[in-house]
């Protein structure tokens, strides 16, 4: 490692942490309202980040083109978020504050996030709730009519706002309604069932995109003064995840190929409470919201022998006495108990299953509501979690009011993403990344209910300022899509599509996706070793090479073609997988969701190495060239995370 790694500048404003954002806003360049209509903005993605950005920018007067691959902007993956959204409102009078939310997020992220961004996020959190309520989002209320809160993992205060188990749905419908209003007003042009396949750069700046109309297959270009990627996370690189089936990395990856650097790709979150895998033909995993850990207790039978009896059906969980149960989270982490952060909860579930104490297929632990039902009554539990319990019952055929749920960790969220500076701009001028698509706020582990907060903060409250600053120095001229850069990009996209169609091998796209997923889960999942990662590196490369020789993509481009859509996405996942492995290999420490078995404390907790690894790893496409952004902690002192 003698080569000196280049250092990237995050352009963090000067001043004390709590004043940075106001200082930035006071000095940012502005575009006069009458001139905003001279700028065209492309927003890719209509999840929380994209819809809120598109609506807010259109309202300010910019001309917005909004894209999503679903049939309607309202169906973006954000719709599936269940548990809630954090905000430092301190409505509960339980000691919450902007600082505490900031601190919990930095600590929860295991000191691998940028302080300035996280502080801004905590500051903006309170405005988000105001905005959402004004839009008519029916958040849960107390009897007196004020907003209700629940608590989530990694926090000792109740700051999570929620709308039953459908918070993401309600927040997205709010943002979608704001977007719909702008569509009606003619300020946003919506392109649903369109997929971005390339970014167009003119004179070093992001100036447009190449898209495929997913109904007709037509390839065309759109030109703009800036491009926002709000395309969500890449958890589907593991094939099985809690993400929606269509979630993908393609837009970010193609931008990466054009020069946008990718940060911390190996930081993925494995969520502790998902419905366990049932068989080989499964396409999707289902999350059971973390909010369940407020009332549910996680346990396994005390010994492998007892567990085996339970697995074989000779003993039912209710029959196990208190002494025969191991409430392993409560035992190991008395202060946080079942509400430890996700990475900790997941890892511990894996440990007890590895010890042979798993239930179900052996890869499951119990999440038990018996005591909560006894304490509060079934009605109270039903009113809090009714729809989640119903969903569980529908999927598994078991009644969680009577028997404990079986749960196991699953891939859920990706903290890594395109590198952005404080202004959410990538390394390509004029190209921004918002929401889960960027890497910025969650470090090596995201706390529950913080992704929704980040998506909306980015879209409603950050980008309107930072984009204005960029555009204030930008000429109005538009670049026609007849410009050679567009023409060239279109040709390239078509060439790649033809290449996929011509392979005509004999394995399906899903086959490669599954193989990639299995390999990533095994070696680059919940715990990682150098040896395993090196094996995976070879395997993924082989898979990628084989894919390009032997995949079978049926049909033609000029048609709705699901197979072709998937093939393009899997091709990108295969490249991303390699990068994730590379990143996991270079990070010779454990932090948050990145657990390298070689680096752990005697108690099996993640062992960070701040001296050598207190940085963001930032990758350039192609030559595996890594850049760094050093993380400076001014306000909080990194310590070993303790939830005991």
């Amino acid at each position, binding site marked *: 490692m003698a080569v000196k790694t280049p250092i990237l500048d995050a352009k963090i404003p000067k001043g004390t942490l709590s004043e940075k954002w106001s200082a930035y806003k006071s000095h940012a360049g502005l575009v006069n309202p009458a001139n905003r209509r001279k700028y065209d903005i492309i927003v890719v993605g209509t999840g929380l980040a994209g819809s809120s950005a598109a609506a807010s920018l259109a309202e300010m007067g910019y001309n917005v083109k909004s894209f999503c691959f679903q*049939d309607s902007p309202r169906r973006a993956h954000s719709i599936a978020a269940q548990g809630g959204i954090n905000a430092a409102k301190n409505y509960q009078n339980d000691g919450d504050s902007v600082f505490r939310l900031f601190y919990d997020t930095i600590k929860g992220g295991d000191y691998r996030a940028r302080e300035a961004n996280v502080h801004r996020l905590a500051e903006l959190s309170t405005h988000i709730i105001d905005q*959402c309520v004004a839009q008519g989002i*029916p958040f849960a209320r107390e009897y007196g009519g004020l907003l209700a809160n629940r608590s989530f993992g990694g926090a000792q205060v109740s700051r999570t706002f929620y709308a039953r188990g459908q918070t993401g749905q309600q927040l997205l419908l709010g943002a979608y309604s704001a977007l719909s209003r702008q*569509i009606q007003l003619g300020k946003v042009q919506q392109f649903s069932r369109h997929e971005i396949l390339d970014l167009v750069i003119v004179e070093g700046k992001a100036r447009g995109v190449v898209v495929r109309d997913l109904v007709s297959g037509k390839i065309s270009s759109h030109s703009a003064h800036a491009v926002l990627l709000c395309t969500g996370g890449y958890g589907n690189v593991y094939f099985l995840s809690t993400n929606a089936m269509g979630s993908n990395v393609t837009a970010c990856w193609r931008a990466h190929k054009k020069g946008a650097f990718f940060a911390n790709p190996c930081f993925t979150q494995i969520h502790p409470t998902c419905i366990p895998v049932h068989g080989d033909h499964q396409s999707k995993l289902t*999350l059971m919201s973390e909010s369940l850990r407020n009332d549910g207790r996680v346990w396994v039978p005390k010994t492998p022998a007892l567990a085996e009896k339970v697995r074989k059906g000779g003993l039912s969980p209710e029959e196990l006495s208190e002494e025969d149960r191991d409430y392993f989270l409560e035992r190991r982490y008395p202060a946080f108990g079942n509400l430890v952060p996700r990475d900790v909860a997941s890892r511990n579930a894996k440990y007890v299953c590895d010890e042979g104490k798993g239930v179900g297929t052996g890869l499951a632990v119990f999440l038990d509501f018996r005591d909560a039902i006894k304490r509060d009554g079934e009605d109270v539990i039903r009113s809090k979690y009714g729809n989640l319990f119903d*969903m569980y019952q529908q999927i598994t055929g078991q009644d969680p009011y009577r028997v404990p749920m079986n749960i196991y960790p699953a891939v859920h969220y990706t903290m890594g993403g395109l590198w952005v500076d404080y202004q959410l701009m990538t390394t390509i001028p004029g190209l921004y990344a918002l929401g889960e698509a960027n890497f910025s706020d969650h470090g090596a582990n995201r706390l529950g209910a913080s992704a929704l907060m980040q998506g909306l903060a980015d879209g409603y409250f950050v980008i309107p300022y930072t984009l204005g600053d960029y555009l204030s120095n930008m000429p109005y001229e538009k670049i026609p899509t007849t410009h050679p850069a567009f023409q060239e990009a279109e040709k390239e996209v078509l060439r790649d599509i033809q290449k996929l169609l011509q392979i005509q091998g004999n394995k399906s796209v899903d086959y490669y996706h599954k193989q990639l997923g299995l390999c990533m889960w095994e070696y680059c999942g919940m715990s990682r070793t150098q040896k395993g990662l090196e094996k995976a590196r070879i395997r993924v490369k082989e898979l990628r090479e084989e894919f390009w020789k032997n995949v079978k993509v049926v049909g033609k481009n000029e048609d709705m073609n699901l*197979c072709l859509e998937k093939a393009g996405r899997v091709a990108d996942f295969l490249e991303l997988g390699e990068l994730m492995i590379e990143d996991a290999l270079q990070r010779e420490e454990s932090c948050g969701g990145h657990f390298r078995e070689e680096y752990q404390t005697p108690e099996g907790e993640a062992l960070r190495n701040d001296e050598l690894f207190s940085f963001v790893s930032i990758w350039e496409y192609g030559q595996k060239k890594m850049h760094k952004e050093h993380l400076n902690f001014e306000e909080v002192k990194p310590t070993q995370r303790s939830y005991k």
Partner: protein
Amino acid sequence: MKITLKIWRQSNSSEKGNFQTYSLEDISPDSSFLEVLDLLNVRLEEEGKDPIHFDHDCREGICGTCSLYINGRPHGPSQTTTCQLHMRSFKDGELLWVEPWRAKPFPVIKDLVVDRNSLDRIIQAGGYVSVRTGGVPDANSLPVGQDLAEESMDAASCIGCGACVASCKNASAMLFVAAKVSHLALLPQGKVERQSRVQEMIAQMDKEGFGSCTNTAACEAECPKNISVSHIARLNREFFLAKILPETK
């Protein structure tokens, strides 16, 4: 288990479609219905045939993307979305007829995929509170009774799937529109624009060619989110009030 599927195949909006038969064996009762279609598609692709195109995304019953009839019923035999339907709901050896939503405002795009943007256009016509970003009051400045918030949330749970339209002999979108109108009309935030909202949304619904509501409540019986027809009653009331009191707008 074994299953035979008769699936509607149609290569594009202008061509005529027909049913094709597919037999599958070794299906796990724990698989979801859409996982069975996935399985079939892998088989078709490996044989070099065009896979069955169907809409889906979240597979958690919340995005409202999945949309098909099984044996004539939107989303299939139980009152859930198709993606939440598991093979244990069927008998071994059963024959299932699978079709796209049938309604004039939902033209077929390909196989089981239809165009439901007419629903988006109804929302665009007025399904919102016209607030801008920023400059809004503190969230707790306006208390909302728990009952009202809960009732509003019941309505807001609509996933926009269109099963109500698909189940209605008139292809009426009343339950969908009522859910949105009700969600907002119940809350103080939505009260300001309640009169214009209901009129504009209904006007758009008519323009899209959705039929009128004749109160058969078939929609409620098929709605995967249990949206109650009582919201249609509220919609009618809102509409009526808006008509007789236009000047209070």
